């Protein structure tokens, strides 16, 4: 099978990679691209552990073909901190103990970030339902919601 050549932007960096037509974006990230922060919990769009954004849209990378990344801008958990400086959501997740085993955490953070980018002032209910597609078996629910709400408030304050 001929490999496909994909040009894309990941976490602000232009990237090129080769993939099979039937490779998923998640496999490409975790394999050739070496970005193993996105996790596979189900490979069927049910758990959100593989969440990334494509042109600011939140998607399950296990449901996207790698070839579809061509010409688009992707963001993964690896692009969230600025060097050593954590994103406010990352910092707040730590403080609120909103993670235990951590395997859902990448997806949870990427999804929370996607929410705050489109709605910097969500209600608690909006947060609970926006994150309903990200499963945490451990389970950090409620602390996660509190972390997102508090981060949103602090980010709004900082923006003023």
């Amino acid at each position, binding site marked *: 099978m001929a490999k496909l050549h994909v040009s894309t932007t990941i976490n602000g960096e232009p990237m090129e990679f080769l993939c099979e037509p039937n*490779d998923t974006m998640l496999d490409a990230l975790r394999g050739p691209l070496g970005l193993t922060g996105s996790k*596979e919990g189900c490979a069927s769009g*049910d758990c959100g552990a593989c969440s990334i954004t494509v042109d600011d849209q939140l998607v399950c990378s296990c449901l996207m073909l790698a070839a579809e990344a061509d010409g688009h801008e992707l963001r993964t958990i690896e692009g969230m901190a600025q060097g050593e400086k954590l994103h406010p959501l990352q910092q707040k997740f730590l403080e609120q103990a909103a993670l235990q085993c951590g395997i859902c955490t990448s997806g949870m953070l990427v999804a929370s970030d996607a929410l705050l980018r489109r709605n910097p002032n969500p209600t608690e209910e909006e947060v609970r339902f926006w994150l309903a597609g990200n499963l945490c078996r451990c389970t950090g629910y409620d602390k996660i919601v509190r972390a997102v709400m508090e981060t949103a408030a602090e980010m709004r304050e900082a923006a003023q």
Partner: protein
Amino acid sequence: MSDIRLTEASSHMRHGSNIGQPLTRRDGILKVTGQARYAADNHVPGMLHAVLAVSSVARGRVTFLDVEAAKRHPGVVDVMTPVHKPRLAEDPDAKTHPFMFRLELLQDDTVRYANQAIAVVIAETLESATEGAALLAPRYETQPARVGLDGDKSFAPPAVGVGNPAEVRHGDVNSALTDASMRIEATYETPAQYHNAMEPHAIVAAWDGDTLSIDTPSQGLAMAQARIAGLFGIPPSNIHIRSPFLGGGFGSKGLISGPQILGIMAARLVGKPVKLTLRREQMYGPVGHRAPTRQTLRVGMDGDGRLTAIDHHARTASSSFDDFFEPAADASHTLYASPAIATSHEVVRLDTGTPLFMRAPGEAPGSIALESAIDEAAWMCGMDPLAFRLKNYADVEPITGKPFSSKALRECYAQGAERFGWARRPLKPRQLRDEAGFLVGWGVGTATFPALMFAADARAVIRADGSGLVESGAHDMGQGAWTALAQIAADGLGLDLAQVEFRAGTSDLPDAGIAGGSAHTATAGMAIHNAGAAVTAKLADLAMSDERSPLFGAGNTGVIARDGRLYRRDDESWSEDYADILTRAGLAEIEARGKGGMDPAAQSIYAMHAHGAVFAEVKVDPDLGQVRVSRMVGAFAAGRIINPRLARSQLFGGMIWGISFALHEEAVMDPRSGRLLNANLAEYHVPVNADVPSLDVLTVEEHDPYVNALGIKGVGEIGVTGSAGAIANAVWHATGFRVRRFPIRIGDLVVPASD
């Protein structure tokens, strides 16, 4: 492990004592940045991918596999089958100790359950291996599957859980029931449940001659190492397992599973490193589950609302080929004072994978039945359910008469009730409504879990620069071992956390036992604590016998280790730095080992349990029957809390498992085929953020000098117990419908149950 960069101690830490500090998790930065490396994140050069082909029937024999078709597929390297596989040194069906379970390792063509591995396809890419597995197109000779608790004749098991007697009697339950002025008899059903850790079991295995290097999640490194050593006929020391982070375990990673061993066999077969990851649907079979139960409770009361008899009988299931019997009825041994208590079990054999330990094994299903029955009994007596529980409070362990090593359950009831506002609860059901017209109900449940300990070793070192090193093959599956055990390590060495290097998570370190039974912090923690005490004692010996030391001759009064110095106990103006003692002695470092384990003497005198009280509010749509938990308060007394922030996380997690137990989780079996109908995360319901309300956890102070020197009881599982029952009781209080089959379904609340 050198590639694990943990966070240094945070600045808010109080000087002098690390235990009790609410530190954030030291592996947290790795986890929030996506850098924590879980088993499946490892890619070894030259690695191949293995994919399981699994049975689509529940019982029978594989009669044909199209191995040629799979092999012809581009990229496929080999196909491992019962007739083409590496030789094992030990029969996978042998059981040489009680913690050994039979494994399906392609030993023959028998199918014991749906989703059992019947072949393994090894290929250059995951896609090729997956396609190769699909091309095998197996054919079967099928026998009728035994499904459900009535699927076969029952028998009395020789034991339940791990060696608990299947039947226990205290007093004469039958005559107490006959003489009771009031009694209830009710039957409760709980479904099969699957652990569904978010991280599927994965293994990367690489052989080099007769040595084996493995990345795989494990809650019990030493036991996994011993099992692999036995199966492959190599010494345990030839096996190196790395398991720095588990993506959840909940019991399913306590023992190494068949698929993980198949990954190692595949690597041996092809002579290259192999990665094998279970697909989500493949986790419903070979990696354990919680067996279904049907529990009948007969409870007798006198005219004053005092319990006179509890008879708790559980019917449960194991697999057709191995023994694990959920000790569900044992939940009635410890909670409520009753002059007569009997518990008993009967079991059937079904065509499923072998059930195993799952977060609060026995206690979780037992507790929801017992707490429901206690509520039904309270209602029959016309009493508030909390008042009824207090009236039947056990001051000694009911089944044994032993005093409790500590029991702050009264305080849990009081503090939880106060926080929840329980005093305003109307006695009768169906009295409360919210502004939207939803039925509102309040329920309570008592939580309990034994304070267990296994056995562990640890090693502690003090170095000439005054810093410390502590080694323990401990496991962090999310509960926070990297942090809490390091806090114990620092206190044990009398050092600041930043001065201590803590190594864990690999099989070459001292055996830390298993991360299970809520016993890991206590067990590994005591080993670490004792190793620290032993090494500081050695250091003290050095100083006290050296006339150049300010501590010379302090032998009789002794010394205290604190902040990297030893102080004379009777006069702290005499002290010396660790570094100075070692440097003068010309030693680069000094080391000692310590052990953790239960104290049989204390165990024989005291009953040891953690306790808690959980209060729940639910709202039920009166027309649609939809239930939402709107509020929960849990108050827990679990001995000494090493790290309040992380302990609260564990308790929250447990309470959410309680929500799941009462309202969501259920594996549905097809009665005709014995296959699971919902082996995926869309249809096997677990709660999501939108299902969980704001939760409140209180930890009640409890000093327990008997459980262990550190006073730790464990918090990993107790949150599940009590919580599920509290929700079921709240649903009754909201609607007047007593649902006895879990999870509670919408249909149960629209049409009254016909019993």
